[in-house]
Structure formats: structure tokens, C-alpha cells
């Protein structure tokens, strides 16, 4: 190939790849400081982006009411009314009013909450909580009871005392699941959707081309080959021009 043709090819490749190179450099540079910028914990509130990723919002698996407050489960997350609790939880089994606030039971935990839904403490088998918990109940004194298999356990989460009772008090009120009201569902789902995609995820997917699916990955591959060819033709042209 003549040097002039090579120069034209080099320029055209440069023009085509310039934008991609800028995009890759910029995203790469930002990702380099991902930890410092806490990009993995900054979320993008965009339903359009959630749809673009093809993420289907899950359905509520359980919801319980106690003293006008509702605890609902969406996948492994819990929402006290519309506020998300920190952490992940297995299947929710019930919510009960206690003398200190609320107690919720997952299949293997007792989750103690304040009146405002702040977590006081999460207790599990390591602290003597029996499992698998099927149901949660409380009596008029705010004492907690757990149904585990065919046994009824009385639970005192303060002193970590858990013991089987032979006869359950007649005044026990078992926590019963109920449907989440539509307005609350929409509110929680909106917050949930806003906590799915981090800036790190988006930048990584732009950087790798995955934001456009397989086609994007191929496009980035083609660009990588183009960058290589540009470097090769550039060196070749430079070496030919040397006196």
C-alpha cells in the first residue's frame, strides 16, 4: 500500500475511533477512582434505565401489620411502611407489637425494631433463636411466641431466653399476612427501582459496551482492533518518514 493511502486510512480510522477513545478514556478514568467516589453505592433513580436493562420489578412475597405499622418483603429486603431496612433477610414470618416497639420474625431471625422502624438488634441461631420459624405471635403483655415445627417457643430477646412451652396462652394473637395496599406498593417499588443500578454498574457497562448488549461488546471489540491498527499504521508512517 502506498504511503499516501496509508495516511488516509490512518486519518479515517482516527476520526472514527476518536469519540470512542474519549468515551473509553473518560469512563476508565472515572472507574479508576470508583472506590474513592463510592460509585458502587451511589444509585441512579431512573425507571427508563431499569427498563433499558430489562429488569422486572419483583412482587411482594409477604406483608404483616401490627399496631398500624406494616412490614413488607420484596425479594430479600424488608420495608417498614415505606422505609427500607438495612440488610438482607430470609422469608418474613410475622410482625408483632412489643413493649419496646416491634418484633419481626424471618424464617431464622428475630428482628427487633423501634416504634419508628429502626433496627435495635437482629438475633439468629447464634443467639439461641430456634428455626425454622413458621409464625410469630404476641400476647397482651407484649411477650413473644414462635411457632417452630409443631412446637411453640416463648422468646425473651432481651435475656436471650428461648424455651418450649407446653401450652400456649389462650390470649396469643398470631401475626397474619395481608396484601400490601396499592399506593404503598407503588411507593416501595419506586424506591426499590431507584436502588438497583449503581453508577459503577452503568460506567462499567458503557466502558465494556454491554450497555448495548452483545452488539455493544462487538462494537467495543471492533474499536479495540481499530485502535491497534491505528497504532500500527501510525508507527509504520512515522518509520517511513524518518530520514
Amino acid at each position, binding site marked *: 500500500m502506498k504511503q499516501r493511502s496509508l495516511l488516509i486510512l490512518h486519518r479515517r480510522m482516527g476520526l472514527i475511533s476518536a469519540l470512542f477513545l474519549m468515551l473509553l478514556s473518560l469512563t476508565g478514568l472515572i472507574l479508576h477512582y470508583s472506590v474513592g467516589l463510592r460509585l*458502587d453505592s451511589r444509585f441512579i433513580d431512573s425507571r427508563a434505565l431499569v427498563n433499558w436493562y430489562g429488569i422486572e420489578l419483583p412482587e411482594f412475597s409477604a406483608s404483616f401489620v401490627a399496631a398500624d405499622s406494616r412490614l413488607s418483603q420484596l425479594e430479600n429486603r424488608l420495608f417498614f411502611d415505606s422505609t427500607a431496612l*438495612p*440488610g438482607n433477610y430470609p422469608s418474613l414470618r410475622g410482625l408483632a407489637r412489643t413493649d419496646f416497639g416491634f418484633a419481626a420474625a424471618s424464617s431464622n431471625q428475630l428482628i*427487633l425494631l*423501634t416504634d419508628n422502624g*429502626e*433496627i*435495635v*438488634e*437482629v438475633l439468629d441461631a*447464634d*443467639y439461641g433463636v430456634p428455626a425454622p420459624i413458621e409464625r410469630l405471635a404476641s400476647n397482651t403483655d407484649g411477650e413473644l411466641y414462635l411457632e417452630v415445627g409443631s412446637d411453640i417457643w416463648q422468646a425473651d430477646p*432481651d*435475656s*436471650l431466653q428461648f424455651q418450649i412451652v407446653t401450652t400456649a396462652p389462650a390470649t396469643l394473637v398470631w401475626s397474619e399476612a395481608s396484601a400490601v395496599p396499592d399506593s404503598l406498593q407503588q411507593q416501595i417499588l419506586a424506591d426499590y427501582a431507584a436502588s438497583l443500578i449503581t453508577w459503577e454498574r452503568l460506567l462499567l457497562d458503557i466502558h465494556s459496551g454491554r450497555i448495548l448488549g452483545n452488539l455493544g461488546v462487538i462494537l467495543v471489540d471492533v474499536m479495540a482492533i481499530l485502535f491497534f491498527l491505528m497504532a500500527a499504521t501510525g508507527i509504520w508512517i512515522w518509520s517511513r518518514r524518518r530520514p
Partner: protein
Amino acid sequence: MHKAFLITLTLSLIPWAVASDDHIAPEDYLRRVFEGTVPASDTVWLTGENREAAERILGHKPDYLRVRYWQEGQRSAWIIDEIGKTEPITIGVVVNGNQVEEVEVLAFRESRGWEIKHDFFKRQFDGVSLASNQRLDRNIDGISGATLSVNAMTNVSRLVLLLAGSISS
């Protein structure tokens, strides 16, 4: 500095080492700490000044309002979960007087940073206490690639020393 180098060198020489899924049950841990008879647990609330200090030390709001501990004389054992990068690390700390007697990783759930489970790292905490600025009175050498886990353990030690101080006063 040379200690940090040695730590890095040691780790680079054992690339085949992988994170083990060892899990120490709190009950077993406490039984070892108190040599058989575990005292009844007590709790301290993270409210008011304690909560503000805990937030400052951890760098985020604590996910809980109450911390459980077991005390016998001047010795107290604390078990606290703290996020490393994405998953909670369950850390046990024994305080004697105003000094850390030992730290232990009871459960490590992250895919990286498990090197904090090694004795050579944990031994650095033996005897540390809290300086007036609520930092440890001794530098803890980090581990390359385990910065967040090291931070978690350091911060939990600071928090426990603070809380142990608050219950003793």
C-alpha cells in the same frame, strides 16, 4: 513500613491460599474467651453521644441501636457485624480494662479481604487502646487488597473500646 512489606511478601508467596468458609459460632467463641462459663449478656444502646461517636468511627450510621456484650470482671467480649465491601464481617473483640486483649473474625462473607483472619494481622491489635481522638494508639499495618476489611476491623475495635469505656464509667 518493613512490616507492611513482609505482610505483602508473605501473601504473595501463598497465592494458592483461598478464603476458607470457617465460621466460629459466637457460643463457641464466648466459651473459649471465658474458659467454659459464659456470663449473661448485657446490652449498650447506641443513642445520644454514643451514636454520634459510633457514626464518626464507622463512617456511616450503624445499622443497629443496641450492641450486645458479655462481661466478667474487667474483661468484656463484644460481637459486632460490620460491612467490609458489601457483606457483613462478624468480628469478636475482647477488651480487658481499656485495652484490646484479642480480635477474632467469627464469620467472613466477602470474596476478598479474608487475609484479616490471619494471626499475624490480628496480633497487631493485642494491647491497643483508644487515643484521645478516638483513634487507636498504635498504627495497624494494612494488607494490600484487603483495605476495606482492615478498615472494618480497625473501626470495630475503636467502637468496642469506646463502648467498653462508656460502660465502665
